């Protein structure tokens, strides 16, 4: 049995006060899959929420603003890799072809329709997008994963507080649609505000349980959660943001075109949580050139050590937080064979064997081994002195 590690007490937490709207991006960059088929030619004026491309799995790429489709451009993604993106110039008209509609009772949807929408939204259950097809058979319980590993990422907390009605209604509807007795909403036991608010509201939703989870790292990963809660294939885990997107689509029959981004960290005086268009370029909300000289900026999670390099980063669904910390000045020393990395791996891998394909594929890249390493070796990145 692995000993779960609580890292949050080692970090200074900076909580943003409220959500700041930044929905006026001049250009929007929509990441393009290799398999995607573009449905329009450059120069075409597109309305908001138009399906601009479709991939092999019939997952549509949605245009989050109304504007002119300019063409394809390579831009850096969350892994600092240059990927192809579709560029849209915003005309700020927010024109949409769909009328704003609202469905009062989400439970009235049929199972087939919900499954189709889940597929269209590319919703993953149990970390596998193909598993949702099995949602209609032998399902015991749905777990809504509202956990977050980065101590300074408040997206889920704000989502839970600001969209509680839609989230609870969607979970309750899923229970009815899929004939489930109950679902569990997983929240960290440190989110006191969310807990107190939801305790009041959950009385109206008897088929939803609030489950408080210990603040250990990296509990939000399905592989770790599965072990922690002893889940099997009959238990489905769906991320909170996916529930929100599904609920939004069911309720309003529209796609979510905005996302939350937390900018925080131990050195940030005024932490922010932005709501912005999916596909916004980072430079439109933050100039990192000066910050980078004094501090390190990490994408999503400090422990993953995925450093922000470019000002041009595209904020898509994979970018949830930017964590700003002091420059890393720790010296890397040769491995001392202490085995702390081995003992701390949440899924029981041997981090010193990450060069083996089999081990590397299973690795969560959570960075816990590197964080625990007393020699400061970036084990999960296979950087530093040879092990």
């Amino acid at each position: 049995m692995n000993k779960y590690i609580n890292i949050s007490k080692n970090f200074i937490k900076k909580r943003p006060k409220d959500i700041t709207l930044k929905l006026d991006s001049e250009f929007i960059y929509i990441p393009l899959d290799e398999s995607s088929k573009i449905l329009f030619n450059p120069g075409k004026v597109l309305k908001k929420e138009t399906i601009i491309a479709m991939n092999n799995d019939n997952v549509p790429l949605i245009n989050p603003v109304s504007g002119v489709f300019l063409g394809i451009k390579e831009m850096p993604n969350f892994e600092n890799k240059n990927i192809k993106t579709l560029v849209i110039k915003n005309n700020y008209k927010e024109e949409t072809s769909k009328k704003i509609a609202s469905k009062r009772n989400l439970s009235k949807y049929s199972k087939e329709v919900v499954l189709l929408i889940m597929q269209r939204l590319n919703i993953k259950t149990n970390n596998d997008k193909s598993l949702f097809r099995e949602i209609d058979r032998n399902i015991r319980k749905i777990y809504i994963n509202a956990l977050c590993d980065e101590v300074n990422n408040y997206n889920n907390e704000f989502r839970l507080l600001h969209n509680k009605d839609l989230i609870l209604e969607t979970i309750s509807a899923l229970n009815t649609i899929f004939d489930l007795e109950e679902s569990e909403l997983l929240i960290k036991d440190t989110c006191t505000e969310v807990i107190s608010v939801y305790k009041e509201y959950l009385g109206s939703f008897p088929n939803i349980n609030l489950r408080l989870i210990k603040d250990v790292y990296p509990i939000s990963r399905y592989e770790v959660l599965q072990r922690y809660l002893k889940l099997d294939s009959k238990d489905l885990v769906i991320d909170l943001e996916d529930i929100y997107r599904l609920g939004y689509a069911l309720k309003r029959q529209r796609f979510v075109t905005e996302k939350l981004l937390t900018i925080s960290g131990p050195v940030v005086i005024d932490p922010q949580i932005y709501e912005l268009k999916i596909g916004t370029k980072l430079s439109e909300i933050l100039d990192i050139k000066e910050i980078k000289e004094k501090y390190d900026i990490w994408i999503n999670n400090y422990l993953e050590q995925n450093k922000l390099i470019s000002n041009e980063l595209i904020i898509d669904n994979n970018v949830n937080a930017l964590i700003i910390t002091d420059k890393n000045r720790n010296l890397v020393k040769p491995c001392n064979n202490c085995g702390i990395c081995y003992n701390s791996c949440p899924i029981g891998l041997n981090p010193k064997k990450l060069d083996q394909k089999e081990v590397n594929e299973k690795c969560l890249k959570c960075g816990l081994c590197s964080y625990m390493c007393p020699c400061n070796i970036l084990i999960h990145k296979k950087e530093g002195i040879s092990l």
Partner: protein
Amino acid sequence: MNKRIDNKDIVKNYIFLLIPLVLFSCYKNGYILFNKNLVTLLYVFKPLIMFVTAIIFAFLIELIYSNIKKVSIMGTIADSYLPLYGALFSLIVPVNINPLLFIFLLILILIISKLKFIKLNTLVLGRILFVIISLIIGKYTYLNVYEENVLVSYDLWDIILGKSVGASGATSIFILTIIFFVLITKNYYKKEITLSLGGTFLILELILVLFGNMSKLNILVDSEVVFASLLIAPLLTRSPYTKIGKISYGIVIGLLGFILCLFIPKEGIYIAILLCSIFIKYFDLLEDKLPKRRAKNES
């Protein structure tokens, strides 16, 4: 990174834990002797002086090393394991060791420890060298001045409380047990080695007792064996790190050490550790050969 633990924390924790052993050694090998007018006041503090000298020499070696290699002095010294090696070495040699021999062996093992290609347990190497040199010069003994002059016969309680004959810091099983209970709470302590080694010793002792040889029962309560099992065999940098590696390493040392202890009391366990430390890498490789660890995780 905002580290959870650093090399210097590990070394610092270990050294603090060793201090009770040093103080007890000052009492057992110094204060008691001073009361009987067998030694001078300065001699009372000899274990402490050896302990501090070893740490100072470790820093000096690091200083020279960083000058030769032209690397950051502070970075090297702050994260060095040499002070721990030095401190432990001062505890595994007898208090009556010749000071020059102590300094010579200390410098030798510290230098060898800095050589990356030598993966042996250098502390044990130092102890074996001490034994060999002592035997050559005819001064191989762990008795202190008092023990040399009187006929001592210790009962079980004396042994447990630390009045037994042994190396400077390796006489009190009671203090060693407390240290063990503190160390098992630390994630850097390789407790599997200690537990498997101790378990093997216990089983072999019981087998021996069942076969009627009661006289060998004292091996289990030999403070040297306890010291080596608790602090030397699981030495952080010179032992396997995988679970299977650690357990098998402990078992092999236990088996080999027990057999050797029957013939070479006090040194058997150290010889076993030295021999096994040659194959540390292979103990870790056992993980690949045996069924996957934590098989439930593979599901």
